[in-house]
């Protein structure tokens, strides 16, 4: 326990320790082996791991003029996030339920619109959402699947209960870090893997490819491509990494063209038909003939081919309406409406500023709440009440009153903590979790996911744009005896 002897959990549920020097029983052996490595050894491995991540090229590009100075790795913390297999099985069921309902919801709102006609969600909430795509009305994607790749953000509250913070249903990123972090951990700490059963994750690219291939039921030999905005994009590493891992081509819009009702790929030995496009560009840029006319990243005519059912796009255009933060507040109703079930995974308590009584409460309690713009992500467009100045609060108050539809509010959440290296010491840092969920003919949820960690002490913001890093996440295959141990 050496390394953790001075470790004091604070401000949130600590996932390693129930109290100082009192590791949670289900992880006790593992925490003890980690503790015996000692801070010095961990710090050495920490530096080696970061060098390794740089060498494997797990880097992202900061937007700036100079191309080589802006290349960074996502800060990596070597102490793994631990989740029991039992917890995981339960989470998995919750995610599957939620995504099933979301797919039915999307099919409905772009189809018969029962949920609107039955008065569950007001029409204008849907149609004023930034993710709403009128061009998708009347289209049924292959297999009636809309969100093929989802990356929901989960958190644990003060009691340790898992909750959904956000549904990322457009192009969730980060999966490459999730996979590369594991590879680095295996090289740094092989001994920890020997003594425990950590669920393997290397099969993600196989399942991803399978999921994408499923979306072209019209052919035995589907041609899948990954569509990237190009090598200047900050997430280009992940695009090329996934293409490489799946063994498919990484293309830019200019490499594709539409002719004779199909999408084609230009190549040195003639043109080839493309069946499935795993796009890593936003809806708006997909097709200048249908969405933004100034887009240079997309393929002219793509949406026509899509409408005729001769190409699949993953995720389907228009899924963004379901991860609108206002629509998020309706997910329990959505699950009830389509599945007639109670949600397994709960939402975080959320106030809708568009509702008069919520608005009054929010405006009166700005200093206690976190206010989020429904259409912005990445920690932008957000007010953390307890940390905000009076001036900032007034400013937000004005913005909310001008456009209540655009804001939701949540209590300030003390996210759970995991020991992490912060300023050279082990400190309880706040974390969230982004598991990756695939839905083709089958559904598959990555064991664990990307744990993002707020490496700034006491910070509650885990986004990489705000000083966040990441950790490897281990789903620990506990044996029958340890399942009985309450955790």
């Amino acid at each position, binding site marked *: 326990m050496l390394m953790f002897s001075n470790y004091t959990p604070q401000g949130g549920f600590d996932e390693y320790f129930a109290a100082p020097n009192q590791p949670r029983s289900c992880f006790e052996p593992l925490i003890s082996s980690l503790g015996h490595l000692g801070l010095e050894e961990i710090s050495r491995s920490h530096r080696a791991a970061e060098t390794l991540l*740089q*060498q*494997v*090229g797990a880097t992202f590009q900061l937007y700036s003029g100079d191309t*080589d100075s802006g290349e960074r790795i996502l800060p990596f913390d070597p102490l793994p996030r631990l989740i029991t297999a039992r917890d995981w099985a339960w989470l998995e069921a919750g995610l599957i339920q939620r995504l099933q309902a979301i797919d039915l919801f999307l099919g409905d709102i772009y189809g018969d619109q029962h949920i609107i006609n039955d008065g569950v969600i007001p029409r204008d909430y849907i149609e004023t959402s930034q993710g709403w795509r009128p061009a998708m009305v009347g289209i049924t994607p292959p297999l009636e699947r809309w969100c093929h790749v989802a990356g929901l953000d989960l958190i644990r509250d003060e009691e340790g209960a898992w909750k959904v913070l956000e549904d990322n249903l457009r192009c969730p990123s980060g999966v490459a870090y999730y996979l590369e972090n594991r590879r680095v951990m295996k090289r740094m700490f092989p001994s920890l893997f020997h003594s425990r059963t950590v669920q393997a994750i290397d099969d993600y690219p196989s399942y991803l490819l399978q999921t994408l291939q499923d979306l072209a039921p019209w052919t035995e030999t589907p041609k899948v491509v*990954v569509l990237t905005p*190009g*090598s*200047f994009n900050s997430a*280009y*590493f992940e695009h*090329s*990494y996934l*293409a*490489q891992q799946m063994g*498919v*081509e*990484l*293309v*830019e819009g*200019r*490499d594709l*063209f539409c002719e004779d009702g199909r999408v084609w*790929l*230009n*190549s*040195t*030995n003639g043109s080839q038909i493309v069946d499935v496009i795993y796009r890593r560009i936003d809806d708006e840029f997909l097709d200048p003939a249908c969405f933004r006319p100034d887009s*240079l990243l997309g393929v002219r005519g793509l949406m026509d081919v899509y409408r005729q059912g001769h190409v699949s796009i993953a995720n389907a255009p228009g899924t963004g309406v379901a991860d609108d933060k206002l629509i998020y507040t309706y997910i329990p109703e959505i699950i009830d409406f389509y599945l007639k079930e109670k949600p397994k995974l709960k939402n975080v308590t959320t106030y809708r500023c568009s509702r008069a009584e919520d608005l009054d409460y929010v405006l009166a309690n700005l200093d206690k709440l976190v206010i989020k713009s429904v259409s912005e992500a990445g920690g932008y467009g957000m007010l953390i009440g307890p940390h905000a100045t009076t001036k900032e609060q007034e400013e937000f108050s004005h913005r909310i009153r001008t456009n209540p539809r655009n804001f939701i509010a949540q209590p300030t959440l003390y996210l759970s903590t995991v020991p992490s290296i912060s300023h050279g010491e082990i400190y309880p840092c706040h974390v969230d979790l982004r598991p990756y969920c695939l839905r083709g003919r089958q559904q598959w949820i990555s064991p664990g996911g990307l744990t993002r960690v707020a490496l700034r002490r006491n910070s509650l913001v885990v986004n990489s744009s705000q000083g966040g890093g990441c950790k490897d996440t281990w789903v620990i295959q506990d044996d029958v005896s340890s399942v009985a141990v309450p955790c």
Partner: protein
Amino acid sequence: MLGRVAESLYWMFRNIERIENLSRFLEVSSAMDLDSGMAVEPWTPLIDACGDRELFQLVKGSFSAEEIVDFLVQSKNNPSSIRSCLNLARENARQIREVLSNEMWEHLNTMYWRLKNERPMTGLPSQEWLLRVRQDCQLFYGIADVCFSRGLGWQFCQLGRLVERADKTARILDVKYFLLLPHGETVGGVVDQLQWIAVLKTAGGYQMFRQSRQLSITPKGVAQFLLLDPNFPRSVRFCLDGIHQSLSKIDPPQGASEKPLGRHVGMMQARWTYTDIAEIIEYGLHESIDRLQQDLNGLHNQLERVYFQTPQSFLSPRSSIQRTS
């Protein structure tokens, strides 16, 4: 295969080959610089061997050893310096990482970060440093050799590598020939053995030359070996054979001779296979090499026209491809 992928593979290998050649040139020169009594200083010819005299004069003040080495090793103003080439090769690789084997990418990327994290060099590079750079390039080839599929992509890699190699071998010979035998007629005259040994070493061919000939070193013999030897992998002829082979696997052989690219390479290969060294010297060694270089440039331009330019590439505001020559 996408045209821009083919182009990146071609340039990635071409840039690595360029780095390897440069480090080899510098290694030999810095070894020569340690010997006393050299009639010729070993640095300036390197500028000519790289064909960069104009650029050098533009960005550098004097032909001192330090300035020359800085220009060749790390100058940002020289797109063919070791560092520039490595940046370009790594950028080529980054853009097409999905088609490379992981090990190739990681090695190249590791090499990139190692050099990038070094302090800028002052003075001359150590033999150790140059050796490490050269071996890094060779390791890259070795990794590609054992884990990169011999499909279309491989052929474009070979083209980049061999075009660059043929060009550099010919240039180093051209420069030294000019320098050591300024009047051309002294073939067979008093020969600076040390200098000719250095030429062979620069091309990595000293031992192979010895084994193949068992004769004393003459300028003519060296020229023959570096230009026309059918077995030495850095000779011009060997490179042209490889270029011809690779191209034949990209362009289907049927009717290939009618296509300008196949015809062009076929003629080059024939010329360098059936000529002999006496004819070359009679025609003028410098003139022959000059012609070779024009032919190689012609080959490159045709590759670009036939394979690399995707029809819609003009739509892109920024070219994603880095060109160095």
